[in-house]
């Protein structure tokens, strides 16, 4: 009874000391045998880890499908090992390329990196959404951009060099005299019926197109001086661009909003890179 009731401070101290020594021993072992941070096992989402860089299982699935045209479960162990070995080899070569400075020396690598970086910015911008209010505001501010392409049916004549009074010919056409009776010859550039404005501009040239665009159905222009002589056009039918309704323009509006965000993000990224960089420029190039 007396023995069981005794306190044993000595035993307590010994146990504490043993615990402390064990902890110190573990810490010392870990400290002096550490080989740098690395993953001791392969995470579930990875097929392999190469010098700390993961190779995703998802990519292995795609690689097997690309190589053999079958799913992962249908592939034999040898096929899976071959696909994975190819991917590991690629990763090793990439890492070696980075070590050797190909990122700075090889123009193709640099070009691919720039494209990748720009793509990353575009990816972030393309992941954004726009509310109905934002899209409506954009549409209202850029309504002209969402008009369809105008179209026209136009006839064009080039006047003979010895035409005399060109204005009289225009007046005769307005009076419904036939072009044949006036010995006019069509230029042949706009004989195909309806043309979009961009096509008419290409065919007529900017000066004559600008005049044609201003004409209403049936109107005849005054003589137009162009590089190769005098021209007259008659507008058969003119359909100016018609604004597309908001609902119909919705997909393009979202596209344009994202494009604007992408440009903004690119500019901000460039500003950030330049601001934080230490750039020294040679004296003669400043």
């Amino acid at each position, binding site marked *: 009874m007396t023995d069981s009731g005794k306190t044993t401070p000595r035993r307590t101290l010994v146990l504490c000391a043993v615990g402390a020594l064990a902890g110190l021993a573990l810490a010392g072992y870990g400290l002096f045998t550490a080989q740098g941070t690395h993953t001791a096992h392969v995470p579930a989402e990875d097929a392999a880890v190469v010098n700390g860089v993961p190779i995703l299982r998802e990519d292995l699935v795609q690689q097997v499908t690309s190589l053999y045209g079958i*799913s992962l479960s249908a592939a034999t162990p040898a096929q899976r090992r071959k696909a994975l070995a190819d991917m590991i080899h690629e990763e090793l070569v990439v890492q070696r390329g980075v070590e050797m400075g190909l990122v700075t020396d090889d123009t193709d690598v640099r070009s691919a990196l720039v494209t990748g970086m720009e793509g990353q910015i575009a990816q972030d911008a393309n992941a954004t959404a726009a509310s109905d209010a934002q899209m409506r505001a954009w549409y209202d501010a850029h309504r002209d951009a969402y008009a369809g392409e105008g179209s026209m049916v136009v006839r064009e004549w080039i006047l003979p060099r010895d035409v005399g009074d060109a204005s009289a010919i225009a007046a005769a056409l307005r009076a419904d005299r036939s072009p044949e009776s006036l010995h006019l010859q069509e230029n042949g550039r706009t004989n195909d019926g309806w043309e979009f404005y961009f096509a008419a501009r290409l065919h007529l040239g900017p000066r004559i197109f600008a005049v044609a665009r201003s004409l209403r159905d049936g109107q005849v222009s005054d003589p137009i001086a162009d590089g190769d002589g005098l021209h007259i056009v008659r507008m058969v039918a003119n359909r100016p661009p018609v604004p597309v309704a908001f609902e119909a323009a919705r*997909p393009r509006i979202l596209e344009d909003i994202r494009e604007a965000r992408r440009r903004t993000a690119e500019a901000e990224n460039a500003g950030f890179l330049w601001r934080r960089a230490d750039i020294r420029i040679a004296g003669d190039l400043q």
Partner: protein
Amino acid sequence: MAMAKLGSPEQRAGRRMTLRPAMALLVATGVLAGLVAWREWHEARLAAALLRGDPETEGRDPVLGAYARRAGRALYAAQCAACHGDNGQGSRAAGVPALIGPLHLYDLSQVATIEQIARFGIRSGNPRAFALADMPAYGTARPYAREALPPQSPGQIEDLTRFVLALRGRGPLTPAARRGEAAFTVSAGCWDCHGHGGEGEPSIGAPALNGRGSIYGDDHDTIYRSIAGGRAGVSPAFAGRLAPLQLRQIALYVSTFIAGDSARPVRAQGRP
């Protein structure tokens, strides 16, 4: 003396009364911690099994499939439903394709393909995005940036529109439609992506034109606008935003839309 140190019987009874609630709390905490730890361990096992499995077959596993679809439903509601709809019905107004129904741009019968699309997107800017082809804008001076294609006149686009309507059984094969067929199969190059019979090409995301279902609508004006103005829809890339496990879960959930089962409204669920 030892008995004196322990205290009187009344004091010892008092200490026991104080200890009982504390012990009960300690035991309850231990049990709760144990349950939480077990749940975490169980989830981790399921997650690892899902990631290590074949995406084409694990959906059929009753335990893994249910686990993936449960998590995938919540992820779909948070990440995808705003565009693709609660039931995967898409949106013609926004040009977002339906995930249910007969028309798919790509071969979504493969879960791995769904996963890749979720991961890299479509025309998202990601270097591995699905972006092999766009719908050219035949009513512009330069219809297609990647290839020299001939612009089409308003009359030619009208003929093509008539032909596509006829393909879809929404119009007769008039002389205009026949001219459109000639352009479709020869001069305008439409067959190159959409196939000679308008059957589409899933490897490049060219939709079928000869059946039911459409992304933007199958009335005359919408088809005309698509041919004249072109189309190039975007699906964002979730690489870097969602973990590989989450991408697998979403893909397996979306595959149920494609398979036609479990297309229950997201909002009708008790809790995500």
